[in-house]
């Protein structure tokens, strides 16, 4: 299967090949893989992709999904223009 054509995150263009590269480097958590691949850094915050990353971590390392921690979610969950934020201050 062509791993570089399986798109995990269409926004940051992270592929299954990128995820597997991290796993092969020895990283075992969602937060690690997020920082190394940018998966989950797009506007959707991993809504569409993190469950796939969790599956792969689980399969690769033979660990239970229940033992894998999800990543922390940061604001914002949708995009706000700078001018709206500024006007609010006024």
């Amino acid at each position: 299967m062509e791993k570089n054509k399986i798109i995990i995150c269409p926004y940051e263009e992270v592929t299954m090949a990128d995820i597997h590269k991290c796993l092969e480097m020895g990283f075992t958590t969602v937060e690690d893989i997020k920082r190394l691949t940018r998966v989950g850094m797009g506007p959707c915050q991993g809504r569409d992709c993190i469950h796939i990353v969790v599956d792969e971590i689980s399969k690769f390392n033979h660990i239970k999904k229940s033992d894998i921690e999800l990543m922390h979610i940061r604001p914002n969950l949708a995009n706000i223009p700078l001018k709206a934020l500024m006007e609010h201050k006024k």
Partner: protein
Amino acid sequence: MRIKRQGIFVFPQKQINFTFEGKNLSGIKTDTIASALLANGIFVFSYSRKTNRPQGYTCSTDFCTGSCLMTVNGVNNVQTCKTLLKQDMKIERNRGPKHVTL
């Protein structure tokens, strides 16, 4: 492509004209930009930044995955799934990387 018959609903059919990449097209009152484009058979909404892969309409439920972002009346990165279609809108794909023009 529009659905012809659909249960008990009666649909408003007021036509809204807009352009996509210079082409004259039309939608209906209940359309978002995204649904009007799909109805007109336009499926490629953007191209990915790094590898230029075509991207279509995917998410629908907010939490933008970025693929439906387009340039509307000169403003880039507009979420076409969350924006209602208006008369005479000028809609284009984002040029190159997703960007804003200033």
